[in-house]
């Protein structure tokens, strides 16, 4: 039973292009700063989730794509996991609720 697709990104990619045609869940593994990001193919009314992992060093910067409105800050703590849910609306991602931070990753 697969309801949603999840795409994984890491900072070895020169550009993170989050494509709403391919997934509704995006997992980002930060091993460096991620400043070149973009989002495309946003469907209105669809729920999108970002899961952002810091590596063991932490303090990696994640630039939210320009299409993202009102996101929470990404937790800089080492090995932390930040989660943010959005709703697609008129070509933008609107934050659905405050994001969550998970300080400890097993």
């Amino acid at each position: 039973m697969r309801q949603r697709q999840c795409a994984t990104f890491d900072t070895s990619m020169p550009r993170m292009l989050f494509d709403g045609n391919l997934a509704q869940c995006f997992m980002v593994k930060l091993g460096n700063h991620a400043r070149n990001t973009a989002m495309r193919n946003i469907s209105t009314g669809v729920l999108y989730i970002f899961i952002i992992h810091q590596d063991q060093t932490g303090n990696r910067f994640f630039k939210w794509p320009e299409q993202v409105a009102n996101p929470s800050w990404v937790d800089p703590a080492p090995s932390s996991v930040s989660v943010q849910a959005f709703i697609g609306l008129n070509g933008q991602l609107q934050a659905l609720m405050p994001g969550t931070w998970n300080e400890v990753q097993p």
Partner: protein
Amino acid sequence: MPQVFGKLIGIDQALTDIGVPTIDFQLCGYGGQTPRAINQGAEVGSLAQIERKGVRITEAGSVFRVNLVGNDEIEPPGTYYTATVRNGNGDAVQCNAYVFNDSHGEYDLDFTPPYDPSTPPPPLAALIADYLQHVAYSANPEFDAAHYLAFQIVLTGPVLGGNVTGVVTGNLYTFIINQDDVGGHLFVWPPQVHNAVPVNQDPNSLTQQTFVADSDGNLYPIGAGTYYP
């Protein structure tokens, strides 16, 4: 200009008395994808862009022919078509669905119905499906994430450590945890669940929280949990 043609079958009566018949075509995507004419880069959307030729259906088995205007190929594979024959009043007298079949060349339309007309088509999957698992109480309950998207458990005693199996990456899972009318039952979240809200221990209370699954099988909350009442 690529040409498509087909033979309309399944008409079991002469159509000579229905006036001037017309045929409406509709392109339908496969798997939710929008039909597209490639090599042209243009959306097709409907067969209004198809030039019909020889559409003069007067009896069963009449052959008609259409041309794709300026389109070299249709994607995605599996794109299907409906053809509706209308009489002079515009009333539909026959409607059927057909698929591309490249066995006779990539531009040929196969107007053979994809199923035996004498056999009813298989039933469609239900649009409303029950993805809530009612998990029976135990001290170590199992939550089946391979088949369900939400779990409800009524605590009649303490849960000391359950287990979530079959987690699908990217899926959202909601836990609904009820206390019985006694309350005070401890609920230890399964080890796959991180940063979950403490479960309310008031009698008859309800605690809810939704999580997203990552590729490592972990469940992280997408928002704060809620209590009711």
